[in-house]
């Protein structure tokens, strides 16, 4: 799904609501059949850890961890995802390096300093972290805005192939309408957001 709209149209707020970080003030949000308004903070955190992977615009990685450790971090707070990652790859580090390789990170870069990676590579590592342990939803908050046009398409294609493999829904936020054609569904936020009018 492609979600687009200009800055300030409430994209990030929506993502925060979906991920259960921003509290639901009125009404309800049902994600994967789970009503978020009814969950406590701790349960929402658990829900997010188990079912949602996130890719930010840039600087996705903890600078003091290696790319591999950054990917493993995705399982750190979710036993469910840790279990699934173990099933997928034999062990969590193995699954992490599988994902990284699938996303085009070279083996020798697995343990290097993340600062030595290019922005595109950093975003792939972030994607690997989002995919590990097969969360059902991947939230990508403008993950391509720091990338140039060529890498952008390549990145989205890899993202799709992984999403297909792990049967994940990608909620992709961008202000760049040109990317819409790559997606199954497209929503323009200003057109549906009554609150910002």
């Amino acid at each position, binding site marked *: 799904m492609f979600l687009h709209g200009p800055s300030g149209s409430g994209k990030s707020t929506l993502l925060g609501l979906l991920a259960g970080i921003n509290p639901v003030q009125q009404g309800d949000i049902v994600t994967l059949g789970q009503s978020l308004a009814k969950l406590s*903070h701790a349960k929402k*955190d658990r829900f997010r*850890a188990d079912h949602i992977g*996130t890719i930010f615009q840039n600087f996705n990685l903890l600078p003091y961890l290696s790319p591999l450790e950054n990917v493993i971090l995705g399982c750190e707070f979710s036993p469910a995802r840790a279990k699934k990652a173990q099933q997928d790859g034999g062990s969590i580090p193995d699954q992490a390096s599988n994902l990284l390789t699938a996303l085009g990170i070279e083996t020798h870069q697995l343990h290097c300093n993340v600062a030595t990676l290019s922005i595109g590579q950093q975003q792939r590592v972030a994607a690997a972290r989002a995919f590990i342990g097969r969360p059902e939803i991947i939230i990508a908050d403008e993950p391509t805005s720091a990338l140039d046009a060529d890498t952008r398409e390549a990145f989205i294609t890899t993202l799709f192939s992984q999403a297909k493999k792990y049967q994940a829904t990608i909620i992709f936020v961008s202000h760049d309408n040109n990317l819409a054609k790559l997606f199954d569904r497209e929503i323009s936020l200003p057109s549906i957001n009554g609150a910002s009018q």
Partner: protein
Amino acid sequence: MTLLKLALKSCYNRRASVILTLFTIAISVMLLLSIERVRIDAKSSFSNTISSTDLIVGARTGDIQLLLVSVFRIGHSNNAVSWQSYQDIKQRRGVAWTIPISLGDSHKGYSVLGTDSHYFTHYRFGKKQPLKFSAGRAFHNAQEVVLGSEVAKKLHYHLGQKIVISHGMGNTSFHHHDDNPMTIVGILEPTGTPVDKTVHVPLIAIETIHSSTSTPRSIKQKSRDVDTQTTHSDEHEHGPLESEPGDLIGTPKQITAFLMGFDSPLYTLQVRRNINQYKAEPLLAIMPTVTLKELWEMLDIVEKILLLFSMVVVVISLLGMLTTLLATLNQRRRELAILRSVGARPWHIFSLMSFEAILITLTGCVFGTLGFYGALFTIEPLLQSQFGISLSINTLSSYELTLLSVIMVAGTVMGLIPAARAYFYSLNDGMSIKI
């Protein structure tokens, strides 16, 4: 990867500022521990200077002045106790022993103390420890001298060597008695008290030093003191330390002071009152333990200020840590948002930040303690030789462990402040990264 490991890696990533903070805490902990150790040991060293002595009697001055002169060899007494009074008082009922002391001369800056053989048998320091000889023996006649351990060590004196005692105090005495060389026959073991810095001579030698005539006193003069009467043994072995036992007392007119021990503490107060009302001359009797305590209480304010300063230094170092943690917190909001996005709960963030503070404080304390032992080994010989304070190099006392745990608790509490801020950041920021 546990939270602790994350905290460790995060700290390592910011090692420059973390190490600086750690260093400040370590230094302050070292300072606090060292000051406290010196303070406590100085106090015990001080109160252990003399023990088992029930009264010190001297000419009437102030209590503390008499103590300083007779025990610490600080200052000098203008007046003296006449020999008759001494003889009179030592006959009192209940008196177990007396030690006459005569001060006022020096040898190369070290005080010369004239006394008799009772000094070596009855004088006690520390926890009722007697004086022991590391080499040689007590003096037997007027030409023999016994050195404190430091005198021998500093001046490189050895047994059998002949030295000259000068008249008056100070290093540069003009009046040297070159005609009265004395033989070193004994060197005492270190005591950590002013005894180490004292040159012990027989009372008679003090007279000899002062007499203008160079004729030596007859060693056959009858001893006035029963205990000093040494048997004229017939053995004439030839060695550097063999000598004719002779008179140690001579005919002194006056002495600086004398120490008294009683058979029972009951006599102490009674005799003290009698001495303080002594008719023949104005005398003063003090109980050294009481006066030592009074003297220490005068220094109390100084030690309190020292303690206060070292505590302030610790507080400042902890505040430094707080500043650093708060300053880096803003830069770390991204880190916190990433952790939140992978499912870390706010309390994870909170523990992560607290771990960091605890880690820094703990490591600071460990290094501070190591530094403290390092400092202890370095300054121990210096303090021992300069001030006679013997530092105890042993494991941390329960008091010191309490100090360390107070610092730990304080550091942890300080660490809760940035942790709480991070907690609220992570609640408010949500997923969006704010820089």
